[in-house]
């Protein structure tokens, strides 16, 4: 589903964000991407969405070689990918509902289904009461959850999330991971960049660790069950 062949990304002469990266993520996999700040996680995810192009090497996603893909097909390719951006990228001038409705319009979902789908997606991230708020009226974590709802709203083929729990408390984080796991069960391939070692430890999934733009470790994490730490725990950990 996602293949990197000897991918190098240099932004300028001094820094190489990614260094000769080769790996493969199969259809239906759920993979964590981790590594210290500045290791190149976001850069890797941006390559998948073709926000940027590699300096060297090939990126193949959903059977498409992104280096050779025609520019006019880019929007259709991107519709197959649900992305949670590290900085959320919500449209400030639109309310939460309008943000979701816009995506549904893009995905050619008939307008009469928008309300239902948006409500369901927000319900999943526990934000259905903020349907008509503007992003700037939301807390950091709430914005992040809108971004997650947007990425998940129509079961994308590939689900890519950059630090989707950075602004969430551990209970909510675990809940979000459970949502990603559900999407994964419904068929989405999931790639999830995170710093949260606890989440990775509890998940029992494959982990790719980046360091200075290189893969330093690739392994299967054996799931550890976390003990509930407060009365708010629900979701996976129960």
């Amino acid at each position, binding site marked *: 589903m996602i293949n990197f062949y000897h991918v190098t990304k240099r932004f300028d002469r001094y820094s190489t964000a990614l260094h000769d990266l080769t790996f493969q993520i199969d259809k239906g996999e759920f993979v964590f991407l981790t590594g210290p700040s500045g290791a190149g996680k976001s850069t890797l995810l941006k390559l998948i*969405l073709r*926000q940027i192009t590699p300096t060297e090497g090939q990126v193949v996603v959903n059977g498409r070689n992104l280096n050779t893909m025609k520019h*006019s097909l880019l*929007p*259709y*390719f*991107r*519709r*197959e*990918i649900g*992305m949670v*951006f590290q900085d959320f*990228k*919500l*449209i*400030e*001038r639109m309310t939460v509902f*309008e943000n979701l409705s*816009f*995506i549904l*319009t*893009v*995905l*050619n*979902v008939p*307008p009469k289904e928008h309300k239902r789908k948006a409500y369901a997606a927000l319900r999943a991230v526990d934000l259905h009461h903020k349907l008509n708020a503007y992003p700037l009226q939301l807390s950091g974590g709430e914005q992040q959850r809108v971004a997650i709802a*947007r990425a998940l709203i*129509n*079961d994308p*083929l590939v689900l890519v999330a950059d630090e989707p729990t950075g602004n969430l408390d551990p209970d909510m984080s675990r809940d979000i991971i459970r949502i990603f796991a559900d999407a994964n069960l*419904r*068929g989405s391939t999931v790639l999830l960049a995170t710093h949260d070692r606890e989440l990775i430890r509890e998940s029992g999934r494959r982990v790719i660790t980046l360091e200075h733009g290189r893969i330093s470790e690739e392994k299967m994490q054996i799931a550890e069950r976390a003990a509930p730490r407060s009365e708010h725990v629900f979701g996976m950990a129960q």
Partner: protein
Amino acid sequence: MARDFNTQGRHEPNVPSNTLTYFFKEALRRIWTAKRTSFVAVTMISISLCVLGSFLLLSENLQRAVEQWQGRSRVTVYLSAEVTNDELKGVNAFLAAHPDLSSRHFVGRDEALQRFTTYFTNLAEVTGNLEENPFPPSWEIEVRPEIAQTRAFDAEMDDLRKVPGVDQVQLDWEWTRRLRHIIDLLNVIGIAAGGVLAIAAAFTIANVIRLTMMLYHEEIEIMRLVGATERMIRGPFFIEGVLQGTIGGCVAVAILAAGFFAGQKTLAPSSSLLWGFLFGSFLPWQKILVLILGGTAAGWFGSWLSVHERAEE
């Protein structure tokens, strides 16, 4: 949940019937959300069009005023003092054959003498002493100056000079030439000012929309990232620009009309000739349409320019 976007997503779908609705709804929503920016854009467009429109209005009325003045351009045909009746008929026939010269007035010997004595009262004793009326009869002909300036007319006058009984053909050249200069001047002013203003208006609108696009830069970027086609992104901008432009055009016409009719009401009755000229009549509906459609076109052009430019980055 059906993976419904998936098959559709792979190929460019036909524009769904609701796309245009989406464009319009989205454009209206944006104009409303960004009231302030919209206000600025509409203001700029209507200012530009107001300036253009005032100029149109001015030239419209000036044109008419100038035409009235020009109406006084005159040709005087002095007949010879000893002109015979046959010759008179020949001259009449010549004049009748030329529709340009239809607005004419015959000045008989007596009228000529009388005029002379009225003009030169201090010469009354001279004329009083005359045994015989020495003044020749003449034709005074009003010629529209746009005709008077043509070579064809010059040729016609030369023919007229050759008609028997015609002594002299005096063209009111001095006055005509002056008027001609003034009209030329006004035209040059008109073309220069109109041209400069039109260019300025186009630039202004394009720049405003360009700045507006910069404001929306992030938003557009996000739309691209979530898979919106250029058409989906640009559509609302186009409609927005077009709507703003059209509204700006309408506002401009409204302002002009308000100013014009207010001026007509307060200034025209004081009825110096000048104000009468300037507040003669409002723009004809064709020019009103041109102004409004000018706004529409400007909005369209501005959107096109800026959306296009952005897409190239």
